C-alpha cells in the first residue's frame, strides 16, 4: 500500500506485494500481551546472541581442533554417542556442537553489520530521492530497478572470484544486496511527508534542506527503519549461509553454518548429523528472525504489511 505511492516505474511487483495484505487499522487502542510465539522467537535470538558472545566459554572443544581419534562420532542420543561430543563430530573429528556455537558468530556479525550498511546506503538514497525528486530521484530509482532485475548472487560470485573470499568482502556484498528495500520504502514515506504542514513551516522559517532531512524527516521514519532492519536480517543471514555453502563465504577453517552443511553433504549416508545439526540451527534462526520481523512490522507500522 505504501509502495503504491511509487509512481515512476509502474512495477507491478509492488502492486502485487501490496495485495497480499488486508487493510489494517492503524490505530491501536489497547496494548496486547506479547504473543507466545514472539516470546519463543525472541528467546531463541537472545540465546543465539549470548551463544555467539560466550562461545569460548560454552564450547566444550576448540572449534578448530581436529581429533582424528574421534571421527564421525554420532550425537549423544544415537547409539555410540557420548556427552563428550553432544552433537557428534564430523569426518575429521571437529566437534559439531562447538562449531555450531561458533557458527552463530559470522551469521550474526555479517547480518548485523550488513543490515546497518544497507540501512545507511538505502536511507540516504531514499531520503535524497524522495526529498529532492527530479534527476536524483530518477537515477536512484533506476539503480533500484536495475539491481532488482539482476540476480545479485551471480554478481557476488564474480566479486569473490576476483577478490578472493574474506569476511570484509562478504559484509560489503551483503550490505549492497539489500539497500533497495530501504530506499524504496523510505522514498515513499518521504514523498508522503514532504507536503505536510510541519515541513512547509520549516521551509518558511528558513531551515536548510539538510536540517529538514535530519531533524524533521528522519525522526519520523524511525519505526519504519526498525521494521526494515528486522525484516532484512532474515535475508542477510540466508545470504551469508548461501555464500558459505557455495564455498564463497567465510574462509575456512572458521566455522559457518553454511560451510558445515556443505561439508556434511558427502556423508549423508554414514553421518547425517554433520549437516543436519547446523542446518536446523540455521533454519530455526531464519524462521525466528522472519517471525519477529513480521510481528514488529505489525506492531509498529501495520501499513507496511507485505514488505520484504
Amino acid at each position: 500500500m505504501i509502495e503504491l505511492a511509487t509512481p515512476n516505474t509502474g512495477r507491478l511487483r509492488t502492486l502485487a506485494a501490496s495485495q497480499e495484505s488486508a487493510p489494517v487499522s492503524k490505530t491501536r487502542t489497547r496494548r496486547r500481551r506479547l504473543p507466545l510465539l514472539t516470546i519463543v522467537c525472541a528467546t531463541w535470538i537472545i540465546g543465539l546472541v549470548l551463544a555467539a558472545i560466550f562461545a569460548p566459554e560454552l564450547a566444550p572443544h576448540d572449534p578448530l581442533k581436529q581429533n582424528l581419534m574421534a571421527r564421525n562420532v554420532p550425537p549423544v542420543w544415537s547409539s555410540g554417542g557420548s556427552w563428550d561430543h553432544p552433537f557428534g563430530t564430523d569426518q575429521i573429528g571437529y566437534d559439531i556442537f562447538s562449531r555450531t556455537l561458533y557458527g552463530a558468530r559470522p551469521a550474526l556479525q555479517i547480518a548485523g553489520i550488513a543490515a546497518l550498511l544497507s540501512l545507511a546506503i538505502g536511507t540516504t538514497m531514499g531520503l535524497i530521492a524522495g526529498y529532492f525528486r527530479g534527476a536524483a530521484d530518477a537515477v536512484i530509482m533506476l539503480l533500484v530497478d536495475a539491481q532488482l532485475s539482476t540476480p545479485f548472487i551471480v554478481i557476488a560470485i564474480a566479486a569473490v572470484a576476483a577478490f578472493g573470499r574474506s569476511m570484509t568482502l562478504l559484509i560489503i556484498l551483503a550490505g549492497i544486496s539489500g539497500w533497495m528495500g530501504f530506499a524504496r520504502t523510505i522514498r515513499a514515506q518521504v514523498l508522503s511527508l514532504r507536503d505536510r504542514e510541519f515541513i512547509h513551516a520549516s521551509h518558511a522559517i528558513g531551515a536548510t534542506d539538510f536540517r529538514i532531512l535530519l531533524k524533521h524527516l528522519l525522526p519520523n521514519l524511525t519505526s519504519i527503519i526498525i521494521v526494515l532492519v528486522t525484516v532484512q536480517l532474515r535475508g542477510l543471514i540466508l545470504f551469508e549461509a548461501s555464500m558459505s555453502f557455495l564455498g564463497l563465504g567465510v574462509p575456512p577453517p572458521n566455522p559457518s553454518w553454511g560451510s558445515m552443511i556443505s561439508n556434511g553433504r558427502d556423508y549423508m549416508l554414514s553421518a547425517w548429523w554433520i549437516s543436519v545439526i547446523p542446518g536446523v540451527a540455521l533454519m530455526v534462526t531464519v524462521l525466528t528472525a522472519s517471525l519477529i520481523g513480521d510481528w514488529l512490522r505489525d506492531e509498529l507500522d501495520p501499513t507496511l504489511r507485505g514488505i520484504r
Partner: protein
Amino acid sequence: MGLSGRTLISRFGRALLTIWLVVTVVFIILRLSGDPVRLLLPPNAEPARVEALRTELGLDQSIAMQYVRFWQQIGRGNFGESLRFHQPAMDLVLQRFPATIKLALTAFLIATVFGLLIGSTAAFTRGSAWDRSAMATMSVLQSAPSFFLGIMLILIFSVRLRWLPTSGYGTFEQLILPAVTLSVLTMASLARMSRASLLEVLRADYIRTARAKGFGERVIWVRHALRNASLPIVTVFGIELAELLAGAVIVETVFAWPGVGRLAVDAVSTRDYPVVQSAVLLIALIFIGINFILDLSYPLLDPRIRHD
C-alpha cells in the same frame, strides 16, 4: 489495447540500461581486483602471452580506453578462454545452459501447479483447518534455505527410503529432487499470493453484483474471481522465474547438477575467471530479458495498465 510505442521504447531502454550497468559492474570488479591479467591467464602463462593480453585489454592506456576495449571484446563475443578447459569460456557456459533451463522450467511447472492449487483451495475454504495449516506450512517453507531443504530431501528420499538418486544428471529420477527443492520457495510464495489475491477479489463490487444477479457460486469463482485474481499472480511469474534461475546456482551445487550455476561456482574455486565472468553475464542477461518480456506483457493482460 496494445502497447504504445513510447512505453515500448522506455521499457527497452530500461532493460538496456540494466545490461549496461551489469557489464560495467563486472568491468569494475575486474579492474579493482588489481591485475586483470592474473585473473584471465593461467599463472604459468608465457611472458609473450601476458604482453599480448595486456595490449589487447589496453592496460597501458587510460581506464576509459580499457572500458571501451572491454565493450569491444564483448561485442565481438570474446569472453576469454577458460584457463582450465582451454576453450572459449562462453561456449562452456552455453554447453551447460540446457541443464539449467531444464531444471528451472521443471521447478517452475511444479511450483505453479502446486502453488496455485494450494492457494486457491485455501482461499476457497478460508478459515478452515486446511487453509490455516497450508498457510503455516508455506510460511515455514519460505524460511527454509534451499540447500538445507535439498539435503533433507536427500536424507529422506535417497538415504532412508532409497527411492531416488542423491545426485547426477540424465534420468528423470535424477531430475525430481533438484526440481522439487528449487520449486519450494516459488511454490510457497505463489500459494500465499494467489490466496491473498483471490480473497481480495472476492470482496470486490462486481462479485457482489454477480451474486445479486443470481449466478451460481461456480460461475462466480471461475469466471469472475479466478480470472480477475490471476493478474497479480501472472505479474509475479517473471520475477519468480528469474528468481528460480538465480536459485538454481545453489540447488545445482547441492545435487551436482551440471548447469551454469555449478560451473560458475566450480570455476571460482579453480580460479577460472573467464568462465565466471561469462556465466555471470549470461545469467544476468537472461534474468533481465525475462523481466523485460514480463514488463511488456502486463498491458496485454490488463488493459487498465498502459502507461507509466
